[in-house]
């Protein structure tokens, strides 16, 4: 299987879908001659031209609205928002329009639109450019929200999103654009609403999405060296949410830690915790634990930024506390050489 970066996998999916379906077009800032603010659309303008790769001025509400209106007439726009932070000036078009059209009009119109945008924090980008709002969007009926954590899922989910007849917020992540991984050739499609279990384990479940999954897998590796078996559930899709896979894992491990890059209060991890608590109340050996970004505006100085972000140390510590809470560490069931 060929190895591609997350960025290349997205580009491949876009290109293949544009070749497959003439109603698919890309619209956004700097997506054409500039070749994409993060180079995801590199080469597409040269191949498909200005009609299908529409270079928009800085007017997010305007071109998001164009996406919605053109989708109502049957096109399949892929709207690129340079980063998730800038979607706030267009949020009326997403929540009040894209998400409402089908229902408000009694099922007579649809909005088959994808909004591609990277979120996340890091690289000292500071308060207005380091945010994770995916939970706000996943809160809204009428939208679908997906957040792949690796190149293969990036390709497969983007293809599904483009073919979907409902509006999909497709969350990418700045930190993992360069991450490499095996990506199946050809028409590889990952269904929306299906979580993955990239690491199987028996002692603790970590539930995460996007970049948090990359970290969760690293932490799981560290626990393995200590003889503790961690299972990682990568949600991939936030709405719909594959609770079957989460619950199946928790019923096996009886311990769960939810990790997200964003603020945990009212966040994705809060949703998972509530649903797991109901579905697995009798089977939990410890309360559901959560870890997320510090609830501050992202600061600039490196030591402060490091302190505000989720990192492997914080995930590790939170996981240890779940294990300790359940009595697992105290009872000495787990040892370094088990």
């Amino acid at each position: 299987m060929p190895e591609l970066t997350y960025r290349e996998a997205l580009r491949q999916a876009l290109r293949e879908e544009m070749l497959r379906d003439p109603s698919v077009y890309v619209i956004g800032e700097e997506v054409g001659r500039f070749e994409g603010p993060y180079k995801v659309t590199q080469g597409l303008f040269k191949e498909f031209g200005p009609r299908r790769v529409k270079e928009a001025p800085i007017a997010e509400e305007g071109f998001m609205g164009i996406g919605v209106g053109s989708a109502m007439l049957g096109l399949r726009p892929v709207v690129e928002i340079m980063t998730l932070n800038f979607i706030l000036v267009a949020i009326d078009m997403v929540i009040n329009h894209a998400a409402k059209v089908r229902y408000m009009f009694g099922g007579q119109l649809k909005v088959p639109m994808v909004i591609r945008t990277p979120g996340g924090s890091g690289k000292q980008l500071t308060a207005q450019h380091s945010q994770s709002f995916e939970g706000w969007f996943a809160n809204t009926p009428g939208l679908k929200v997906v957040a792949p954590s690796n190149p293969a899922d990036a390709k497969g989910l983007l293809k599904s999103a483009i073919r979907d007849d409902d509006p999909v917020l497709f969350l990418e992540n700045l930190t993992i654009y360069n991450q490499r991984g095996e990506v199946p050739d050809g028409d590889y499609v990952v269904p929306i609403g299906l979580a993955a279990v990239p690491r199987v384990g028996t002692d603790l479940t970590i539930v995460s999405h996007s970049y948090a999954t990359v970290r969760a897998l690293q932490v799981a590796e560290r626990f393995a060296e200590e003889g503790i078996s961690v299972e990682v559930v990568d949600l991939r899709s936030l709405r719909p949410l594959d609770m079957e896979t989460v619950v199946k894992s928790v019923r096996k491990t009886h311990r769960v830690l939810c990790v997200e890059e964003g603020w945990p209060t009212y966040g994705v991890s809060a949703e998972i915790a509530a649903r797991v608590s109901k579905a697995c109340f009798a089977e939990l050996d410890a309360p559901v634990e959560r870890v997320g970004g510090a609830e501050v505006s992202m600061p600039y100085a490196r030591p402060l930024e490091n302190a505000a972000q989720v990192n492997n140390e914080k995930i590790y510590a939170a996981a240890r506390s779940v294990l300790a809470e359940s009595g697992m560490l105290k009872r000495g069931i787990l040892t370094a050489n088990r």
Partner: protein
Amino acid sequence: MSTIAPSRTTPDLHVSDEELRRLYRMMVQIRRFEERTEEQYTRDRIGGYCHLNIGEEATVAGTVGSLTSDDYLFGGYRDHGLSLAVGGSPRAVMAELFGKETGQAHGRGGSMHLLDVKRHFLGGWGIVGAQIPLAVGAAFALDYEGRPGAVMCLFGDAAVNIGAFHEGLNLAAIWNLPCVFVITNNLYGMGTSVEMASAEPDLWKRGQAYRMPSERVDGQDVLAVREATQRLLRLAREERQPALLECLTYRYRGHSVADPGKSYRPQEEIDRWRDRDPIVLFEQTLRTRGILDDAAVEAVRAEVEAEVQDAIDYALASPDPDPKDLYLHIYDPKGASDFDRMGEGAPFGELSIRGTNWANGEA
């Protein structure tokens, strides 16, 4: 108000008698439909917000009445007249106001969210000015696919001060999209006058910033509105040139049925506008030209009266939507299997998207 004198456009005198009668009937129908709607609202058969077109009939008939089957229409929430003017069934409009399954949006939208997909009326939108980028998107789609026709987008005077107006008009202009923007300037956004809200109260001038043909017409004169609209539609269709049209008019009623419309404007102003009632003016013109006489006017009124009564009867007799279908249409039912794995841990309707699976105490 109004210190702004409308610049009269010479009416196109070469309109067929049949077309003149059609426009007249359309205006009488809208007026009567809205009067009866107001009455039904006070009888508590209609809920929510309810914005009436009374007094603005010439702007509706002159603009919407000029669309062809290739064109598309987007509007705001003062939309009852728009749906009637595209030729929609009064029954389906009234049934929607009554919240019935037989309504234009199957009882999901209500007064502000009428639509008629078959006749290319794509809503009925509730956020001031937000329909403008959507309409530009529809024009983009026409252009993308090389289809004939144009998009008309109607909005009120207050919409010109919201960002979506600027972004929408700018995008339409830089991309040469076939879209005619129409300001229905009834002098007030709720209770805020145009002078209070707009640094440049000559709203049509806003279009000049986007280098698009822009003009103002007397919105009480249906033929003037029609002439300007047709000219601008032709530009949009044939030359991919977007344009802005301002129609000066007046709403006799308040902003919505809940607003008496008295506290922010003097009675004499209301009276002055009523003296130039668009239906009376048009009727006089048609009588002078020998196109209408007493008998013809009476026939139209009787026909419309019966039609609106029939719409009310139909709405009353129509079934309510079934709560079993509460979750139907929130997503594409064909994609409902995407949600099949959400059952564990307190589902909130995710398993009922197909609309036939309402059970398990979910409501």
